[in-house]
């Protein structure tokens, strides 16, 4: 029976429910000591002098690590320690001691003389003619392609640019990036309705449950490291590169990752600290990261200040979309806004579109991808505006999305790239059905006591997969299939679920499949990063290819032993046998032993030459242990693979307090073939919950005078709790396979977030009678001010509140 489409508990679940699952901070080593960080108290400073003599003289203190001792990087990249901290909380140095309290006491006693430097928190401030820059030299990094220039420069707008913006509107000076498709003017000329809105989307921390702690030690010249990372193979390679080590000399053991959401894709710069410290002091070093530190070094989604002008025809068709985004790139610069433009183009398929953007450095913690990077922001921001147009044009809000949504011929981005598949209308139809849109949308605006009902809908596309990675499976003499996985394990279950592609190709029941993951000493194949909704797509393909390779070899062995051509043999039920005579064949265990005897390609002594070096090394290490299937995903693909999720929400908004209760939520995905229904539901709902957090509560707050963060704990940052989400949530999946991938599955990690966020911003606007407040998070103060007709608590462009 095929495993794909079944609910099968992942193989790590028992370890997870018994406490045996070891996360980074759970590893121990003989002689292990502790590192603690000294963080910059200032948003931008230079270290003039460090006096650690008192700390180093303390009994139990073993050493100090300064910025000059860690692997150096070129600007504008981030090293794990710095003498020019660029945000409050950036690690400056580390201390190691025999216990944590001593290490903390030692940090306490270090005197650092910091020279404060100018800082900026809000990119719009940096764009002012005399505004401060986040770096010495500028607010963006200039490195034109094909040139030797690589330096910071200042990008400024003019006073006239600022003056030109209307009251409360975002000024639009010279952009740094611009692309357009079609004739924008003509698009607006055709429009019967044009909306022009200024929007603020908050920056928010990822806040995975597990802080990025790391333990490391050296043995026989090899680095053994236990980081908290989303990816396994890629992180190990990254560490080797950063530490200037041979990849074979890095053993990464991290079978569990307590969440990352894009913040631990290939680990973190700080994971090098225990590695370097351990080399320096000759002891295993544990660096436990606490929640404050996690907020500082743990990455964040870039906030946007944006202005959008959208033209609509009377029938609701989007004729023109003009989007200008100012992005807060944080201390080390990172950009989502281009993706945001691409996602907008895909969602609405406008007849003409322009994206302009400026992404600037600020003196705030580093940004990185966060689940649906760019996409989650833009759909949460634009969907209530689409609603506004629908309302003004008298069109059903789902219908306006159906009208503009892409199908298999859809396009996206400046190159007007093509899709492998898009079944958005099917998803909208299914969502309407499950949610009961027809009936619920009639409740819109009705009162239940002091509570106003609002219903919302959001469409969220995101990239659903990459290609070209390697699969590696071993059939051992025990007759089991061992699927080696270089991807990580952060709870999406894809390290298990993608293995099903190989299992099904070989017709093997799941109880005879072992997944090997989380430890590079176990010989893993070259893999995608565990990020960007890639893995279900990339690794069902890679494992499919490896499974096919193993199947071919089984058939060849059978033909060798029993005669005939390999094509005469079929594989299933743990055996390979002649199509016309079931008894003419052998078990997998027998085949594995034959493969070991036959050597050559059968048991890994020879292999395809298109495999990645990492896979090659793994196959070589496994050679002779069984029948080895190893192959690169060469299935090819035209266009890019995108997944779509539509979210539907019903909220109750208390008009006397501004509080919003999410009563119902339904989301439906177009993510191709469903591999693991329950895990898919978890992704759809979990992403939705993160979206609720964006729309309703999660924040990032800075004191403007000091440039110091405040929302660096859970209760101040406010991720949603179990009482902030509906008691029961529904879901669905269109289930139409993507035609350009063998299993037909598309990734699902990212798009649920935007669907959750947009459904809520849309529903809140609906409960307010169609008023789009054009800001996230929509906290009760913002809502209450609108309800009571009082001045908004924050300026229309005010950020970090």
């Amino acid at each position, binding site marked *: 029976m095929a495993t794909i489409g079944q609910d099968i508990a992942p193989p790590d679940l028992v370890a997870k429910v018994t406490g045996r699952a070891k996360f980074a901070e759970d590893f*121990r080593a003989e002689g292990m000591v502790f590192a603690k960080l000294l963080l910059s108290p200032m948003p931008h400073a230079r270290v003039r002098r460090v006096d650690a003599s008192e700390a180093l003289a303390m009994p*139990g203190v073993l050493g100090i690590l300064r910025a000059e001792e860690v692997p150096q990087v070129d600007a504008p990249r981030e090293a794990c320690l710095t003498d020019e901290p660029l945000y409050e909380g950036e690690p400056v140095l580390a201390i190691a001691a025999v216990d944590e309290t001593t290490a903390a006491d030692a940090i306490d006693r270090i005197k650092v003389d910091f020279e404060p430097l100018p800082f900026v928190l809000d990119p719009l401030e940096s764009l002012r003619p005399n505004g401060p820059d986040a770096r010495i030299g500028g607010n963006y990094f200039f490195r034109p392609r094909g040139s030797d220039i690589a330096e910071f420069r200042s990008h400024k707008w003019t006073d006239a640019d600022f003056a030109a913006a209307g009251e409360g509107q975002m000024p639009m000076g010279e952009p740094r990036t611009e692309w357009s498709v079609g004739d924008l003017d003509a698009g607006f000329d055709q429009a019967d309705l044009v909306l022009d809105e200024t929007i603020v989307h908050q920056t928010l921390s990822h806040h995975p449950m597990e802080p990025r702690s790391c333990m490391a030690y050296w043995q026989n010249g090899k680095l053994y490291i236990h980081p908290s990372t989303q990816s396994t193979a890629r992180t190990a390679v990254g560490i080797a590169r950063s530490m200037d080590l041979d990849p074979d000399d890095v053993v990464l053991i991290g079978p569990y990752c307590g969440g990352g959401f894009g913040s631990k894709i290939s680990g973190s710069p700080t994971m090098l600290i225990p590695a370097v410290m351990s080399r320096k002091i000759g002891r295993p070093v544990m660096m436990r990261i606490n929640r404050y530190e996690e907020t500082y070094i743990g990455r964040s989604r870039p906030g946007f200040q944006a202005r959008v002008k959208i033209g609509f025809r009377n029938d609701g068709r989007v004729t023109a979309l003009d989007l200008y985004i100012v992005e807060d790139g944080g201390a080390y610069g990172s950009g989502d806004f281009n993706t945001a433009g691409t996602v907008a183009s895909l969602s609405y398929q406008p007849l003409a579109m322009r994206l302009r953007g400026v992404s600037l450095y600020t003196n705030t913690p580093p940004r990185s991808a966060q689940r649906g990077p760019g996409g989650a922001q833009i759909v949460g921001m634009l969907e209530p505006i689409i609603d506004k147009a629908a309302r003004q044009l008298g069109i059903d809000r789902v219908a306006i999305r159906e009208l503009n949504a892409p199908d298999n011929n859809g396009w996206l981005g400046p190159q007007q790239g093509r899709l492998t598949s898009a079944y958005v209308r099917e998803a909208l139809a299914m969502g309407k059905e499950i949610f009961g849109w027809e009936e619920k949308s009639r409740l819109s605006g009705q009162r239940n006591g002091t509570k106003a009902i609002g219903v919302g809908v959001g469409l969220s596309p995101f990239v659903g997969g990459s290609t070209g990675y390697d699969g590696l499976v071993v059939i051992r003499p025990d007759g089991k299939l061992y699927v080696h996985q270089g991807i990580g394990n952060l709870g999406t279950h894809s390290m298990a679920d993608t293995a099903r592609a190989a299992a099904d190709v070989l017709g093997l029941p799941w109880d005879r499949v*072992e997944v090997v993951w989380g430890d590079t000493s176990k010989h893993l194949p070259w893999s995608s990063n565990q990020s960007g909704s890639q893995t279900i797509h990339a690794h069902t393909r890679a494992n499919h290819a490896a499974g096919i390779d193993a199947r071919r070899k089984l058939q060849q062995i059978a033909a060798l032993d029993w005669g005939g051509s390999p094509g005469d043999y079929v594989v299933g039920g743990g055996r390979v046998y002649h199509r016309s005579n079931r008894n003419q064949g052998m078990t997998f265990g027998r085949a594995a032993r034959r493969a070991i005897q036959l050597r050559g390609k059968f048991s890994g002594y020879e292999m395809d030459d298109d495999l990645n070096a990492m896979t090659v090394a793994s196959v070589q290490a496994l050679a002779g242990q069984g029948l080895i299937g190893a192959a690169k995903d060469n299935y090819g693909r035209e266009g890019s693979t995108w997944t779509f999720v539509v979210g539907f929400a019903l909220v109750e908004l208390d008009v006397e307090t501004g509080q919003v209760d999410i009563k119902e939520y339904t989301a439906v995905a177009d993510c191709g073939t469903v591999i693991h229904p329950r895990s898919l539901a978890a992704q759809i709902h979990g992403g939705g919950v993160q979206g609720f957090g964006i729309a309703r509560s999660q924040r990032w707050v800075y004191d403007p005078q000091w440039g110091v963060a405040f929302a660096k704990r859970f209760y101040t940052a406010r991720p949603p709790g179990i009482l902030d989400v509906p008691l029961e949530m529904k879901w669905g999946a269109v289930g139409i396979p993507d035609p350009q991938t063998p299993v037909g599955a598309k990734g699902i990690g990212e798009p649920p977030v935007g669907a959750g966020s947009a459904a809520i911003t849309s529903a809140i606007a609906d409960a307010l009678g169609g008023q789009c407040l054009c800001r996230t998070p929509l906290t009760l103060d913002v809502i209450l001010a609108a309800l009571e007709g009082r001045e908004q608590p924050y300026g229309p462009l005010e950020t970090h509140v």
Partner: protein
Amino acid sequence: MADVELITDAAQQGVSRRSFIKGVIAAGATASTASYLFRNSSPLAALPTAQGSVERLITLTVNGQQRRVDVLAQETLAMTLRYKLGLTGPKLGCDRAECGACTVLIDGVNRYSCSILTHTVRGQEITTIEGLESANGRLHPVQQAVVDEGGFQCAFCAPGFIMSMVATVEANPNPTREEMAHALSGNLCRCGDYNKILDSAMRAAEYARRRA
């Protein structure tokens, strides 16, 4: 299903590694052989204590066993469990009584072990996630319910949630979904897997009722 231990236990990596990594101290082993919170070389060891203040060497009842352990006055239970008793089930997600990943039972009541002074629970029954399984390796009904519902994603929060579920189904074996949500509201899940967690918890209550 794969053999989890085979894959995860660092002690099985090979001879050289086995000799190097002691891994977690097995439950029941003498405590403090690897005390990472403080060592004799630490200045903390030399600190004089005032007369009348607590004795450092105490006995704790953890998962039904008496454990002798050297505990600093300012030490939290999470630190004692994780770094002195080798019980790494309770996780430190925030260390500030906000996320619930460190939840343990004290006399059957769920509390945040990151925010308990170890000295204040002398003489009380401490139960961690490691103590739920029966001696023969049978999962606790709550654990079984979670497995059957495929509960949790990254599962860093799972030990805490499960301990809260255990406390809840003991106290109220017939909760509504809403009551269950309230009972679990001291635990945070950043994967947002609340729907599945509630499904698991309701199934756990069902299993607990069935067992009773």
